């Protein structure tokens, strides 16, 4: 069953188009992540779903009910904000009880629901504290508690982990994933961090300049990026791109599909082979990661990064076997050349 249906939705501010037109369906119980660079329109789209931004055109429907013009309070949607947006004058208990109080739920039922949610989120010892006396992670859990206490049909998360340090962020990622598995409610999560997107999502929506660049499972986006933008955005370190002519000069025995403009290679999918190398890269910078090293240099006039567990030092020649590496081909419009065309060319 489709939970959320976004049809031809567009947004413009004073004649300036931010989102030209978006069509998207989100199924019941999915964890969907909107990801993209700053200004791509992901937060605007989320806020339109929440009802905090008006829609210039199109329609949004939740469980078959059109949300256009419906006040945020009447949408059955809960949202967790980047800044947590807790009520600073209310205790944790009262913060979590706020949506129930607004909905006119009885005091005894409110107390029971708040206690149950606090138990689930390990917030029981903090119930009497004010938000100012909590750590970042605790505040985030209270914000989540306030969202889940009234059992909405849809959860929205607007970059909720961006104010946390790296360790807490990874802990909260696992926490959110467990929460989703437990609640089985549809969740939409906005982030600019592709690692967060990859680790959390059932389905990722990559946005670029207000348009959907690709929708798919994390593995699909990583292994079969639909275009150069997605290929460059998903994956860390960023994919290497070599122009087709430079690539041909390095490997003249490999025939590229006819309309290839550039070839992409992920740094961790480049093979280092000291016995039968196709080419060498002079290492200019080495970044140890612990389990491997990142080698930075230049290959055929382009910046190139290789991730390998082989030990080399700065200034040394890194032997590369590009023909054994995973290659991605992109045409003049920066679109992926599909596997069939690649095999035909071979």
């Amino acid at each position, binding site marked *: 069953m489709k939970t959320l249906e976004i049809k031809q939705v567009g947004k413009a501010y004073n004649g300036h188009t931010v989102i030209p037109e978006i069509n998207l369906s989100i199924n019941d119980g999915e964890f969907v992540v909107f990801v993209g660079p700053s200004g791509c329109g992901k937060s605007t789209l989320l806020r339109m779903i929440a009802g*905090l931004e008006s829609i210039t055109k199109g329609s949004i429907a939740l469980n078959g009910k059109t949300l256009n013009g419906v006040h945020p*309070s009447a949408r059955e*949607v809960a949202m967790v*904000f980047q800044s947590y*947006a807790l009520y*600073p*004058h209310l205790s944790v208990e009262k913060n979590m009880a706020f*949506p129930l109080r*607004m*909905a006119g739920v009885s005091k005894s039922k409110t107390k029971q629901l708040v206690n149950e949610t606090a138990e689930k989120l390990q917030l029981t010892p903090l119930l009497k504290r004010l938000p100012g006396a909590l750590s970042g992670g605790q505040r985030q859990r209270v914000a989540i508690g306030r969202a889940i206490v009234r059992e909405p049909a849809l959860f929205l998360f607007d970059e909720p982990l961006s104010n946390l340090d790296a360790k807490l962020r990874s802990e909260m990622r696992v926490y959110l994933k467990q929460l989703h598995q437990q609640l089985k409610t549809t969740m939409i999560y906005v982030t600019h961090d592709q690692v967060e997107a990859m680790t959390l999502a059932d389905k990722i929506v990559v946005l670029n300049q207000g348009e959907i660049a690709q929708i798919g499972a994390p593995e699909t986006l990583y292994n079969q990026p639909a275009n150069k933008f997605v290929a460059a955005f998903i994956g860390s370190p960023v994919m290497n791109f070599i122009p087709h002519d430079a690539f041909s000069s390095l490997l003249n025995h490999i025939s590229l599909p006819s309309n290839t403009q550039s070839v992409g290679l992920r740094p961790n999918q480049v093979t280092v082979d000291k016995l039968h190398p196709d080419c060498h890269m002079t290492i200019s910078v080495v970044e140890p990661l612990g389990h491997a090293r990142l080698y930075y240099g230049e290959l055929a006039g382009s910046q190139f990064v290789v991730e390998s567990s082989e030990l080399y030092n700065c200034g040394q020649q890194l032997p590369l076997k590009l023909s054994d590496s995973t290659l991605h081909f992109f045409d003049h419009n920066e679109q992926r050349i599909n596997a069939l065309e690649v095999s035909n060319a071979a």
Partner: protein
Amino acid sequence: MSRYLHRFFVWSAVALFILPIVWMFSTAFKSPGEIFHAGANLIPQQISLASFQALLNGELPILVANTVFIALSATVVSLCIAFFAAYALVRYRFPAKLDNLFLLAVLVVKMMPPIVVAVPLYSLMNTLGLLNSQLGLVLAYQVYTLPFCIWMLLSFIRDIPLEIEEAAAMDGAHLLKRLAFVVFPLCAPGLVATAIFAMILGWNEFLFSLLFIHTPDKFTIPLFISNFMTEDGTAWGELMAIGIVSSLPMLALAGYMQRYLLRGFSMGLK
């Protein structure tokens, strides 16, 4: 050396501000004979409550009640209107920058010399039949207290993050509920600070009460104070005593609300 110079200037400034207050207390507790005694003695030779007794035998309790009622009413009316006005000016977009124009107009009214608005106000009060009434005076005071409250509350409401209100909207709170449960409690320190200043404005106002109030039973304290300075002479003892009596309630209020006042200042200065 610079440390001593610094201390000298600090204590000089303190003395400059404290001296009139000390003088007021000193004169209020002197006997009528001692007040006009030659020489400037700060400490009364004999403590006398004659000036206070003279005041209490008169209409002072009624005057205090009048002043409290008028200042408090003017403050409450101003705060109620200013709270909604400031919220609308902060949160809503007005076409053609009408909000800025409105704020400028409000500021101009506040900065006008009182006598400029006094004559049209007198005419208006006369037409409405509100001359010599406490309601008329409360409305007249809005000319000063309302612009002040709007401008002061603007900064306090601006300090409330929009996301908190958006979160409240997502949690099911419509505008009035958001104002009551989120905005109002969050700017409470600012409201208290604004209320104290508005109370002081209303408490000390003289010109409008002089023009609009005619019967002694409706006099306010500043109007009553002026009665001690007549062509026949000045009743210094009573004047100083009423100076103390009229300052104490405001000092007590500010002292009692000091916690909110300081929080209000720190909020508004952000």
